């Protein structure tokens, strides 16, 4: 996965959902993306959704918001997404990965609820992430001029 040629490194915002302290996948994804030339704003574990929105305000060039959640609380932790979007915030593809509901028996309804909140992409394995980011990049409008 080679970064598409640009002047600036591509930026993404990465973090773990509000109630979730699992750090390992987050740190590996951060290192992986950096090794592929991305500028990663890593907000780390236990990051409330509004802090993702604040980070996007500070880094408007970011192409996507990558949120991890493995403790099972994805739905409750993301429930402010519709409200933030209504306010015009978090106006980028939200990519969610991890273990997205409580319990060893998963139901597709759990993922549907997350999509209904406005999650744009649900990624299961790490190997899907870079191709998805490339697809999102290619689909972008010419980058808006900021500042």
């Amino acid at each position, binding site marked *: 996965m080679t970064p598409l040629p640009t002047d600036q490194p591509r930026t993404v915002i990465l973090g773990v959902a509000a109630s979730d302290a699992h750090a390992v996948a987050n740190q590996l994804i951060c290192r992986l993306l950096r*090794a592929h030339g991305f500028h990663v704003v890593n907000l780390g574990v236990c990051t409330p959704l509004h802090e993702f929105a604040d980070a996007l305000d500070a880094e408007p060039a970011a192409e996507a918001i990558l949120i991890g959640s493995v403790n099972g609380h994805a739905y409750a932790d993301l429930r402010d997404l519709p409200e933030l979007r209504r306010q015009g915030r978090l106006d980028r593809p939200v990519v969610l990965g991890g*273990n997205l509901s409580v319990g060893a028996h998963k139901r597709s309804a759990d993922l549907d609820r997350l999509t209904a909140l406005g999650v744009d992409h649900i990624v299961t394995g790490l190997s899907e992430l870079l191709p998805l980011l490339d697809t999102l990049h290619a689909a972008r409008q010419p980058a808006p001029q900021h500042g």
Partner: protein
Amino acid sequence: MAEFPGLEVSAAVAARLPDWDDIVAYLRNRPGDTVPDVLRAADRSGVPAIQPRCGVGGHAEMLALLRELALSAPSVLSVTIDSYTRLRQFDVAARVLAEEPARLNGYPLVAHGWQRGRELADAVPVPLEVRHGSPDGRDLFATALAAGITSFEGGGIGYNLPYCKDVPLDVSLRSWQQVDAACGALADAGVLVDRELFGTLTAVLVPPSISLAVTLLEAVAAAREGVRCISISYPQGGEIHQDVAALRAVRTLAARYLDPRVEVFPVLHQFMGAFPADPAWASGLILHGALTARLGGASKVVNKTEQEARGLPDADANGKGIRLTAVGASSMFDFVELDADRVAEELHWIEEEVAELVEPVLAEEDLLAAIGAAFRTGRLDVPFSASVHARNQVIPRRDPGGAIRYADHSALPFSGATRRRHAALLAGSAPAPRPGPGEITAVIRDISYFADRTPARTP
């Protein structure tokens, strides 16, 4: 409003609790074995006590879960607390509880209240422990005591660095100091609280000497506040000589550094890293952990389940995990004998490394301040820290036999001999690749040491 000696409880929680004297009287007169009774009996018999993790949101569901797990004859049962309560977001825990309790990843004890906690404690014939992950567990501790639960996990380092982003160590250490002081007051009043220290830390590739150094410092701090019963947990790394040596080191280090009035019990947490999804490999790893606990002389083993990689286990899988652990820790495997020299060699080096880590800190006047300072400067560190208050610069790797070594000890104050040994032990592993995708692949390989295994099948 209830007043607790030395323990500051938030006004909202204190207002709902009974008076301290009533709590002490209730705890003194509670019938049945306590966790220290169970651990002493395990040490006498040489068979570790067994405890599952378990916690669901709803109260009726939690009662049913505990009753069902009790049928598998664990020695201790857990009240595993949900993530919101751990982070003191009691209002969010209460909201999700009201909306859909099944969506909580644990039992919100503060939201349910101490009276329901007593119903849990009365529902089963074995004592309960509250397991959580709260950098500040004071409100939860007070609620647990009122519920009649006198085994409480956590410490100012082990329940900070893996469990939150930005709580300074000074803050968590001071709040756990209050918990320990309350345990001291209880001990004086004839109520012995078992305080388990979470040596598992971030659970993934944790070098034994980091785990043991952290719990030892927490234990010294707890003993100074009057705590008289300390369980020290260590996470199974997967190489049995190293793990058995680490469990034995819990007792030798305690004898060297702790007030002899303190009872110390080593606890093994069955493999805490990325678990195999395949049920056969998962069961094998559970059995392996049980055997490790017995050979290492653990007083207690906390079991995993074959659903670990998938999500919170159902009662069925958890019961199976308890029973499988009982088998692995039984005399069935008494024919297994480890190479005693190899274990002794590991034990010697673990003790040496722990001494190199803790002695400069113990030499300082103000222990808690010295711990915070050591983490700031990297003289203490944990890999994969969730918190920004550790440097996160130590790089662990598995050696060719699977044991966890330091590929980069960063600023840990190790002697030349210690450093040379780790370098030599890793010399046989694939060379550490330069930073980049290759390096990440190597780390993922070590993390997935067990997770990657798939069952052999006949074609």
